[in-house]
């Protein structure tokens, strides 16, 4: 808690806020490019999913804010783990377990995106494993740091 001094706290909030805003701006830029490049039919197809995409980026921006704010503490790793878990469940729900169906005029299109879902889940599982190991490493280094002065004092 030493690190959370008044000055440090406002700096952290500012830094975290800027990062979160950048994530949200990135979403707007990506969305603008994708939607302007798409033809009307495909726009209608994706349009149904736009609340899911927007919701996803808002949640990611919140996670970015919290992770940056809690950087240097164990909460950072907990939040990173939670973010990966959130992404996995969100994708499973939003992509309807990988099989999405859309209606364009009188044509029903069923897309099987299970391959991509599997890839995204794999990436997030690796990310979760990395977060757990990072947390262990962080705690290890913290413990070492706490031990070193006392060991030095003994010598």
């Amino acid at each position, binding site marked *: 808690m030493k690190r959370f001094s008044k000055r440090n706290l406002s700096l952290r909030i500012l830094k975290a806020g800027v990062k979160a805003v950048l994530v949200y701006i990135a979403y707007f830029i990506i969305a603008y490019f994708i939607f302007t490049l798409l033809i009307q039919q495909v726009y209608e197809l994706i349009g149904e999913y736009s609340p899911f995409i927007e919701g996803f980026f808002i949640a990611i921006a919140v996670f970015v804010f919290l992770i940056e704010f809690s950087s240097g503490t164990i909460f950072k790793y907990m939040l990173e783990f939670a973010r990966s878990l959130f992404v996995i469940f969100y994708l499973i729900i939003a992509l309807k377990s990988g099989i999405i169906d859309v209606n364009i005029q*009188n*044509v*029903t*299109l*069923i*897309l*099987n*995106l299970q*391959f*991509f879902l599997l*890839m*995204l889940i*794999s*990436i997030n599982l*690796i*990310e979760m*494993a*990395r977060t757990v*190991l*990072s947390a*262990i*490493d962080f705690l*290890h280094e913290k413990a070492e740091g706490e031990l070193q002065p006392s060991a030095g004092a003994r010598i």
Partner: protein
Amino acid sequence: MKYTLRALRWATIILWILLVFLIITLVYSSFNIGIDVGEPQLLIGDDRITWAIPAKINNNGIYGIYDLNITTIIEDADGAILLKSSSFVPLISKEEMHQIWHNISISLEKIPNYQAYLTNDTDFIMKHSIRLNFAKAVPCFFIFNSTMPWGAPLYNLHVGEPNCQFNATHCIVSLNVSFENHSPYINLNGTLKVEVLNQNEEKIGMNSFPINVPPYQGNGNYPAYNETLSIPVNVSKLTRSGKVRLTFQTSMFSYEMEVPYEFEEIF
């Protein structure tokens, strides 16, 4: 620990790059596939009607199209399946143009209860489905429905009451037969066989008449058949009541119907 963390970080980065690359190339490839569906051609054979739908698939993308399966199911208004037709292409490689002929062939006699469609107009439901596996990574399934109006070739078939005209030596049974050909595909070219059966189911008279009614041209005037048919019968076996059996025989179908007769005034 540092090396493990670094390895996991790199694994994540490489997987993300692969995923993004795959998505971008798949989307790019899908936009470079040209599908050109031509005008369906109608082929009328002796016993079947075939719609041949040509389609050109020009795969200018960087991935192949695997297991392309086009299926058409024709159902009646109650949802009963009348026929199913499929076309299959195992692979359309990248930079390849493939011509497909999807044939929908109707053989009337192979349709269950087809006789109901000879005298009644209806709307058939055509369910088209296209299944394919794009780049062996994205299986897709398209479904769309359309309706096909069916015109009955023997619409409003009406057989008048049989009459019997006697003279000293023989008897002539006459009856009026009329119908309209509502089918734009079927040329009614065949024979109408008329048999007169007495009470004991014995054939006492028979005659065949040629029929030639062209298909409906879509101009609002249905080609019609309206004839009075005469059948000489064996007087000695003629009974007061019996039946007249009419059999329409064309290359496309055969249809049989019976009408009872009763000649009270004679007996």
